[in-house]
């Protein structure tokens, strides 16, 4: 088959997935933002892997689906994870606890937020992971940006987990707050309540969430789990193949091919 990968990068997991698929006899092309032209030329491939969630990759996903070309993961689900407002309501709908959200201009936030609302986390509305994320401890730390709307979430004090899932496999790691998946993390046995969150998520999305990751915080006072972020295609860099006994790229490539077979 002719397979396209929509990805910010050509290295790391993207490169490994490409190699796995090529080793199985498929022809693979990586499209980055430098060379992705979203028009009929994309229809020359049989299906696409939506590795990155940049807006234009998601647009490409919508375009491909409108032209009956399959895209894995589903662009609509990827979008709902990229847009933090969508992501918040989606997680609430599934029944997960979420930190409280505030939105407003800097002036409104300064006028209406109370001291006890802090600390808060400033995040881009469109984004995932830790890019552009900053802890705001007081009103004085709010960025000055005229009438731009700021998006903030309550900072939950507690243990921060990075949780990967690939089908029924779950890998839970403890990480420093607000860090990405590339920092050193401690592997722990997955607690039952975290396992339940992943099961609920996968049940809700049925076949459309084969793998992904969650940022979850166990609040110190209540021990309750707050889902703070979700991603459809992490690098899985916290998984140690020697410890886990498999390479994520290999398993993910097989899952995607199986999914395409079903579609």
């Amino acid at each position, binding site marked *: 088959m002719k397979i396209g990968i929509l990805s910010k990068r050509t290295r790391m997991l993207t490169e490994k997935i490409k190699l796995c698929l090529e080793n199985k006899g498929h022809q693979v092309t990586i499209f980055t933002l430098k060379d992705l032209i979203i*028009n009929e030329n994309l229809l020359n491939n049989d299906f696409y892997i939506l590795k990155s969630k940049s807006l234009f990759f998601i647009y490409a996903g*919508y*375009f491909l689906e409108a032209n009956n070309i399959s895209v894995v993961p589903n662009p609509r689900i990827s979008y709902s994870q990229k847009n933090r407002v969508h992501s918040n309501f989606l997680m609430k709908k599934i029944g997960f606890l979420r930190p409280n959200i505030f939105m407003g201009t800097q002036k409104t936030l300064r006028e209406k937020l109370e001291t006890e609302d802090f600390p808060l986390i400033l995040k881009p509305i469109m984004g995932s992971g830790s890019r552009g994320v900053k802890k705001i401890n007081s009103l004085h730390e709010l960025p000055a940006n005229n009438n731009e709307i700021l998006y903030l979430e309550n900072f939950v004090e507690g243990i921060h987990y990075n949780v990967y899932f690939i089908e029924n496999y779950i890998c839970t790691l403890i990480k420093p707050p607000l860090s990405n998946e590339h920092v050193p993390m401690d592997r722990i046995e997955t607690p039952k309540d975290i396992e339940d969150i992943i099961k609920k998520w996968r049940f809700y999305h049925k076949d459309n969430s084969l793998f992904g990751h969650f940022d979850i915080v166990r609040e110190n006072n209540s021990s309750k789990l707050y889902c703070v972020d979700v991603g459809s295609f992490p690098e899985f860099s916290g998984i140690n193949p020697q410890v886990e006994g498999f390479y994520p790229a290999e398993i993910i490539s097989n899952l995607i091919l199986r999914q395409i077979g079903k579609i």
Partner: protein
Amino acid sequence: MKKIGIIIDEYHLKYKVDEFLKYLNSKADVKIYIEESFLLNSSEHRFNEDIFFVKAKGDLILSLVKLIEEESTIPVINSYKGTYLSINRYLNSITLKTAGLPVPEFSLNPKDFDPPFNDYIIKNIIDQDNYAFSPVIIKESEYTRVADKRALDEVNGIKNYGYFYYQKFIDSEWEYKLYGIGEEILCYKQLPVLFNPNKIESRRKIPENKELIEYAYKVMEVMNLKLTSMDFLQSKDNHFYLTDVNCTPNFNYIKNGHKIVADFLLNEIKN
């Protein structure tokens, strides 16, 4: 008295809704939510309005509409889906084309790549801010090539997208403007704004055009819009093309537009 929530920004409040609010205040209990001074707090959302009317399209507005739709059964005009699709030009082009509506050819390209057609207009990809179409004619060979200044700004700095949305240019004698207000469709034509910036000067009401009206109803259905304006151009071989959909139309250009829209909202509550 029925309660109506108006979700708006400072610009629209200052320039676009004077008469509308005067009239509406005499008919309903109006509460105004202004984007620039409203604090959205996801844990506090006790709305008691009978209906919401949205007259802006910023990030906070979209989030508030989403919050109301997710947490209550209060109708919102226009819906989150309608507003979101309207401002996302590329997404609405795909959606409308998939639904069988006649949209001009379009392409989304990195800025250094040419589109697959010679005559085109470069438009902004996300039409969310409050400023009017500002055409820049690109003088190049025998083709008609126009860029909206907003689109150039998006690529060259403000948003740093690195991408252009190209829409094939349709050479048309008239621009057809249809307003959809619930079940009512009002049809006008005017000289294309590209060559005649004072659009109202040439605007005139036209008899109902069955083809255009059918397209208008379908756009409203597909995009879940109850209040909209749509722009159509007609090619030399007499085919209509839908070039723009607006979720916050300026109803001041319609005779008694403020009353028509306010009465529509009051009627929606009854329904």
